[in-house]
């Protein structure tokens, strides 16, 4: 357990998300509260999640980001480009065997860019809704408890 400020301590002065208190040791991790919320959403209401499970999940998410970003940086380097963009992330995912993620994120990125384009050109308020749920079938299967992602073995 790291010394120093504990974001989860009852007397901590951090915000709910934990993002306001960034100790050095937490900088490389996503906030545990956010991670916990995401996990809770796909589990049955009576499910409990141990703190260690959330911490492991934090580490997995950071490793995921790092692993893919490294590959994306190599893609950029080969293409002689300076900046890692969303398409590089999607390509990197597919290169690393995460085809489902790569394809889903490609669709998400297209919708996001369209949304940003509309928001900036028409000066609409930013409350326009994007129904990404229909785009990503994982969310449809989620409530049934089935895992829709069957990654090919080997």
């Amino acid at each position: 357990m790291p010394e120093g400020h504990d974001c989860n301590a009852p007397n901590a002065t951090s915000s709910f998300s934990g993002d306001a208190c960034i100790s050095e040791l937490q900088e490389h991790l996503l906030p545990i509260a956010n991670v916990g919320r995401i996990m809770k959403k796909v589990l049955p209401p009576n499910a409990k999640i141990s703190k260690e499970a959330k911490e492991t999940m934090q580490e997995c998410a950071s490793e995921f980001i790092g692993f893919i970003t490294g590959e994306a940086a190599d893609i950029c380097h080969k293409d002689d480009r300076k900046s890692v963009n969303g398409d590089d992330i999607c390509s990197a995912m597919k290169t690393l065997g995460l085809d489902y993620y790569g394809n889903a994120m490609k669709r998400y990125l297209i919708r996001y860019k369209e949304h940003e384009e509309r928001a900036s050109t028409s000066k609409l308020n930013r409350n326009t809704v994007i129904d990404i749920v229909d785009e990503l079938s994982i969310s449809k299967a989620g409530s049934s408890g089935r895992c829709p992602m069957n990654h090919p073995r080997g």
Partner: protein
Amino acid sequence: MAARKHVALPMQAGRYSSILVGGISGRTGPHALPLARIKRIMKRNSTAAGEASPRMISGEAPVVFSKACEMLIQELARRGWEAALRGKRRTLLKEDVAAAVARTDVFDFLLSVVEAEARPPPPPAAQ
């Protein structure tokens, strides 16, 4: 399936992440995970092989990761839950997350993470 109504919120809350995940909390902004933190994590890993300095990161890249990490966390949580049920438990433990990683080939890159988490701390030095 719940009806998807457009809800206008005072702050910039899109529906493509936070409401699906955390409800209308208004605490996470439009994304379920903080973009600045994601960008910081990316920066640590954005140096290409053979290069000295990290690359620049476009604004959309952390947005992609915000969604992708949601998906990853959800997949690992669901698979971990299956492991918990096999162990006849209603509490998701870190060993369940480890089992989910071990059973999914594409998550081999996470094996070192879950093994590090499982490793017991070194014994205190003898006097």
